[in-house]
């Protein structure tokens, strides 16, 4: 039975908006222009590639359903109380193969010694074998290293092949696309003969530095992914956590939370910031006074405190109404959504101020006055003249905010006002692992996994944001 959680709906909505925007932009050369600059940037394209991988995982993890239980009651299909996602199904191996407790990455033994009864009845204290990690090995001590290397090599080879195939496919698609729309800018083909087409498409692609960088990254990434996939089939690549769950699985699950916080929050705050900012800047007078008062009040409260207060209240509220939630996933999800809402409400002030300032500048421009001289209604001036001219600010703010929100989630979850403790997120991962810092030898892999994934995600977002900001710099559009 498919389940659409609130945040899922938001993500679909966001995706649909993005898709619609892309269609809208495609027809308008002046809007395509900055995106072409993005496409010409190696950094932009490579970071976008990384980001899309994260997005893919996040999307797979956003298609939820409740599996049907085998037994039926009164002929009615019964569904499990557990909500799974498509990603859970794909990674079901990783999800199900849990150990007893901690184990290091690529280990065959548990991290802690245990008393075990040997076949002859004596009790010894030793590191027990893992149930799944390296279970196929007869004697891990001697075989482990060799097996890992072998698996890594075959995985990398397979991944490399897949990568080459992918690149070939992409060039093929580009070629077909270029033939359908021969006049598409950037495509060198169209006039050549058919035989030369493929070659032309290939060389045309490779002429651009960003495409070369992109292809190299695809190749390297597929090598790495192939390696990891192959290893993950037999080992816990990033070890296991306290209750024996695969850390790689946890980290991958955390991606969705990060993405939701980073995108849905902006989605929530955008209408506020946009509407109020434009209204304040355009109408001025008492409207401006009121809106300025509103955002000064909100921004004068230290952000964390406002979030903390709001989250505390929300917690109480949710606790008081347990009857609302069919499943624990829905409950955790609502809390996530509320967190986004609260983050959105507390963070709209900056963007609002920015948009107000820009609108103040715009309304003095002559094309606005020309419209006023025609007696064009305020509503039309706002939607046709002001809104399109502040869009670049909004876009830049959205991509810039993303990374800071992902980072903020970790901090908030640590403080205890973040996501539900049952929701997997970078913050909860770090929080749970922090206490194990004191152990000798240290349990470092959970922290490393969380920080590593977060770093790649945030770095990709930051780099992409930089490229977008540069590409949309209005000074570039002057001539």
């Amino acid at each position, binding site marked *: 039975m498919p389940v659409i959680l609130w945040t899922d709906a938001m993500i679909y909505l966001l995706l649909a908006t993005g898709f619609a925007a892309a269609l809208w932009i495609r027809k308008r050369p002046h809007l395509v222009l900055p995106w072409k600059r993005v496409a010409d940037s190696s950094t932009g394209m490579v970071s976008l590639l990384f980001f899309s991988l994260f997005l893919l995982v996040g999307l797979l993890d956003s298609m939820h359903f409740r599996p049907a239980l085998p037994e039926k009651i009164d002929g009615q299909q019964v569904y499990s109380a557990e909500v799974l996602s498509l990603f859970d199904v794909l990674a079901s191996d990783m999800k199900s193969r849990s150990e007893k407790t901690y184990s290091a990455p690529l280990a065959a033994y548990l991290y802690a010694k245990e008393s075990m009864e040997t076949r002859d009845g004596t009790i010894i204290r030793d590191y027990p074998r893992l149930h799944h990690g390296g279970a196929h090995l007869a004697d891990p001590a001697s075989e482990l290293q060799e097996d890992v290397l072998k698996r890594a090599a075959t995985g990398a080879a397979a991944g490399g092949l897949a990568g080459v195939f992918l690149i070939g496919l992409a060039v093929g698609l580009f070629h077909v696309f270029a033939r359908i729309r021969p006049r598409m800018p950037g495509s060198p083909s169209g006039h050549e003969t058919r035989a030369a087409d493929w070659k032309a498409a290939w060389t045309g692609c490779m002429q651009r530095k960003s495409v070369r960088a992109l292809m190299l990254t695809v190749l390297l990434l597929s090598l790495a992914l192939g390696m990891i996939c192959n290893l993950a089939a037999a080992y816990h690549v990033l070890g296991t956590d306290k209750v024996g769950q695969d850390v790689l699985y946890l980290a991958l699950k955390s991606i969705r939370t990060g993405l939701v916080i980073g995108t849905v929050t902006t989605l929530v705050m955008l209408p506020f910031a946009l509407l109020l900012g434009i209204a304040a800047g355009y109408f001025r007078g008492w409207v401006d006074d009121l809106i300025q*008062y*509103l955002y*000064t*009040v*909100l*921004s*004068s*409260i*230290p952000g*964390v*405190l*406002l979030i*903390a*207060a*709001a989250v*505390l*209240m*929300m*917690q*109480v*509220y949710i606790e*008081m109404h347990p009857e609302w939630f069919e499943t624990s996933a829905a409950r955790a999800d609502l809390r996530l959504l509320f967190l986004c809402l609260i983050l959105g409400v507390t963070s709209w002030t900056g963007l609002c101020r920015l948009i107000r300032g820009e609108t103040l500048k715009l309304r003095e421009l002559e094309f606005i006055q020309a419209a006023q001289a025609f007696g064009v209604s305020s509503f039309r001036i706002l939607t046709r003249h002001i809104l399109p001219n502040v869009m670049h600010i909004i876009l830049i703010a959205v991509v810039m905010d993303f*990374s800071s929100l992902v*980072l903020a989630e*970790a*901090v908030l979850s*640590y*403080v*205890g*006002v973040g996501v539900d403790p049952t929701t997997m997120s*970078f913050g909860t991962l*770090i929080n749970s692992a*922090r206490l194990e*810092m004191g152990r000798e030898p*240290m349990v470092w892999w959970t*922290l490393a996994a969380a*920080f590593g994934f*977060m*770093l790649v995600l*945030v*770095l990709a977002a*930051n*780099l992409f944001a*930089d490229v977008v900001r540069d590409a949309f710099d209005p000074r570039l559009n002057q001539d």
Partner: protein
Amino acid sequence: MIAYLIRRILYAIPILIGVNLLTFSLFFMVNTADDMARMQLGMKRVTPEAIEKWKQQHGYDKPLLLNLHASGGKVLTDTIFFQKSARMFAFDFGMSNDGRNIAREIQTRMLPSLAIALPTFLAGLFVYITFALMLTLFRATVLDMLGVALCVLLMSVSSLFYIIGGQFLVSKLWHWVPISGYAEGMDSFKFILLPVLIGVIGSVGSSSRWYRTIFLEEIGREYVRTARAKGLSELHVLFRHILKNAMIPILTGVVVVIPLLFMGSLLTESFFGIPGLGSYTIDAINAQDFGVVHAMVFLGSVLYIAGLVLTDISYTIVDPRVRLQ
């Protein structure tokens, strides 16, 4: 100018009322006074009479915002909101859940917070501006590119990582300073060193980049070209002309946080076990102590508004256009 400042300070009153109203409605939207009483009296088996008594004792027996039974000004004043808020303005924050006086607690905890936050702020300012000036001097070279790349990398790392990593490396591996704790007087130095260091490193990426943008913005202006046309050296142009002008945007972002230094840092203080306001807040959040959270929200707003006024005053120092008009 003076009239302007007075106006700004007077403007603080409606803002603070707004802040109070917001926190209040946030709280009472989900909690009734009855809930509070029940929570305070121990949840189980509370008689309605006990609740009424508690409410009467603590002043929660009045209507929330508007007292329609009263007359005249009392419609507004004889309410929970007014009674509780008015006290706030006199910095009387009441008692925390564990029965301590919040105002006194804040007083004693302010100092340790400041002991961490102020050195972090000053050292940070120095480091970031120096770094940014260096990047500006070497703009459009490989050095600048690498510096900016480093900044982006540093700002992509979670602040939690800096703290955990720093604690692990400096305290646990090298045993240079204690991992956490706080002491009064000279002893405090060894406790302060690491948090300050981590605090500075934690935002070196984003801050330096911000300052660099400001400097680059200034360097494109025409007076810089004039200065160069005079034959001044690049360093002279940078320090005497650009830095002076860049102070205006820099102050806008910097001065406003100075009063907020009193509030301390939530993360640093809780990780390093420093008995400041930050860890006080975090404890209160975890203990769901509304009184303390409310008090801190109010205090934070007051300090923020003080920061805004300070910003205005600081403009008069660096910008003659503000000073002389």
